[in-house]
């Protein structure tokens, strides 16, 4: 084999390899973005159906904002929404406090960091239905407590805390402890050290923890089903309407379109906030 033919051969092999890689990348992108579309297509379609004059028809014919006006006349959704907001605010506050208390110290602990983190993140790998039924059995059957808003707050908190903690740790694990030591050397009191140095640097983590808690609570369903008692949250209202195959499907579409838009806006905002803090 002469040097020239060998060169030619190597060149062709390299070209074939590049082409194969190109095909692989295209397949990857089609699959990846295709599945991402599977997430968002239903949300977009939800919005389309909410303004379709016949939401039960396959192809939307004409569009109307009438269903949204209907929200003012049929206000059964209002009470569940208020309950949901109350719970979400409580969970959000709990998340902010606990994520701050735990998240700011956890990266500095000398012992027991890994098992503690594992215990806190455990709900991420326990299916919601298991948390729901277990909380019900323990608090209702063994401790004979009445289910209600408090048990909803509890299960929502169990679900949201790992996310809030992660949001906090993203910020706090980059925190330079030497700043606090320097402040102590300069005679700052513990409270002043926290307020003047830690607080400003950790604020975005606290805000993220609160937003995660709020959003996860607002849309939580699988755990709520078991522990709601007679309380009805907005997702439970949606769920009940879905299961009864009622004729109020247009109401559900409108309501959830609004909720989805708010959720998407808030979550984009909180992730963006966190990203900006990490970069700077």
């Amino acid at each position, binding site marked *: 084999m002469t040097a020239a033919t060998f060169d030619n051969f190597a060149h062709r092999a390299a070209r074939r390899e590049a082409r194969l890689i190109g095909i692989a990348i295209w*397949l*990857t*992108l089609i*699959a*990846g973005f*295709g*599945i*991402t579309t*599977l*997430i*968002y297509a*239903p*949300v977009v*379609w*939800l919005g389309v*159906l909410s303004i379709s004059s016949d939401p*039960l028809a*396959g*192809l939307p014919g004409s569009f109307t904002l009438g269903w949204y006006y209907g929200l003012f006349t049929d206000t059964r959704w209002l009470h569940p929404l208020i309950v949901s907001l109350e719970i979400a605010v409580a969970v959000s506050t709990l998340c902010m406090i606990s994520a701050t*208390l735990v998240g*700011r110290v956890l990266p*500095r*602990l000398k012992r*027991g960091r890994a098992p*503690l983190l594992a*215990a*806190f993140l*455990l709900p991420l*790998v*326990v*299916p*919601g*239905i*298991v948390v729901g*039924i*277990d*909380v*019900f*059995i*323990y608090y209702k*059957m*063994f401790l004979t407590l009445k289910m209600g808003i408090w048990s909803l707050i*509890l299960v929502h908190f169990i679900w949201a805390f790992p*996310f809030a903690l992660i949001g906090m740790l993203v910020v706090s694990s980059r925190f330079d402890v030497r700043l606090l030591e320097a402040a102590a050397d300069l005679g700052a009191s513990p409270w002043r050290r926290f307020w003047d140095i830690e607080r400003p640097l950790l604020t975005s983590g606290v805000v993220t923890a609160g937003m995660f808690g709020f*959003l996860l609570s607002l*849309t939580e369903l*699988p755990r709520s*089903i078991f522990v709601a008692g007679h309380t009805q949250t907005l*997702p439970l209202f*949606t769920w009940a309407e*879905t299961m009864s195959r009622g004729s109020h499907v247009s109401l*559900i579409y409108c309501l*959830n379109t609004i*909720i*989805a838009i708010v*959720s998407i806006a*808030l*979550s984009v905002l909180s*992730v*963006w906030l966190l990203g900006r803090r990490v970069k700077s």
Partner: protein
Amino acid sequence: MTSEFLERTRSTSQAGGFARHFAAAREWLSSERAPVYIFAFIWCLGVIVPVIISAVLSLLKARGLHIVWAVSLHAYRDIVESGRWEVVVRTLTAAGIVTAICLVTGFPFALWLVKRAKSQKLTQFVFMALTVPFFLDPSARTLVWRGVLGSTGLINAALMKLHLIDAPIEWLLFSDFSVYLGLVGPYFPNMVMPIYLAILLIDNELIQASADLGATPAATLRNIVIPLAMPGIIAGVIFTFVPVMGDSIVPTILGGGKKEYLADTVMSLSTAMNYAGAAAFATIILMLTAVLAAVFLLFRQRMTLARGIADRGITA
């Protein structure tokens, strides 16, 4: 955690009385790590204990909300005798298929996202797009699939209008297909995120070095990227498989009630107030999770062991 505290109180108890105890306790309480341990204690009491108690209940009998304090394997025998173990098999199959789809598509996607995506903006956009689904109402976004896949839904209506089909395709909704379709999307981020983070930690120089030494891209992928991304892959598989196994919303809305999945069974048992039975199923789900995690950890240990032996073989 409390050993330090106990030690300190013990050492002071000989010298002084109650005042010393009190001072030591106050000092510990005012330290900054005290809230973490206190919170961890409450967390265990409120979250970990219920799980244990439920496992205990599954071994007891229950009549409605009342517990009969007699040990019995009744709930588990029921599962075998009523043929409900089929539900376990069906759920595991579904979870396995959905996880496999997510892994096969998610791994290359994560790899592209870290190593090939050209602009920072695009990466951020995709990252954002994969975070938002955690905050969407599961029932609302699943319910819409009925309007898309149903016999009068979007797809059938469009195909009929184009005269591609004469009768609506029935298997699109209330079938295994619709359940898988409804599950793949929402749990895709659970797979991509951990793998993305693991690949992010792989040094570009390692990949470059492998290429410089003459390895084909396939060989680099097999010998460098996949082993280093393994922790992320394992985390992704667990984070996908486990919640899919326990998802109660998608199978109920898109399964049409013809075939039961694990979560349906837990719900119907709890509606029928058979709480011992529901607890047994919840315990089975947890056990399956634990087994899955253990298998993966062992697998990983053996892999590192094998690599250690191989490395020593090369140097010897």
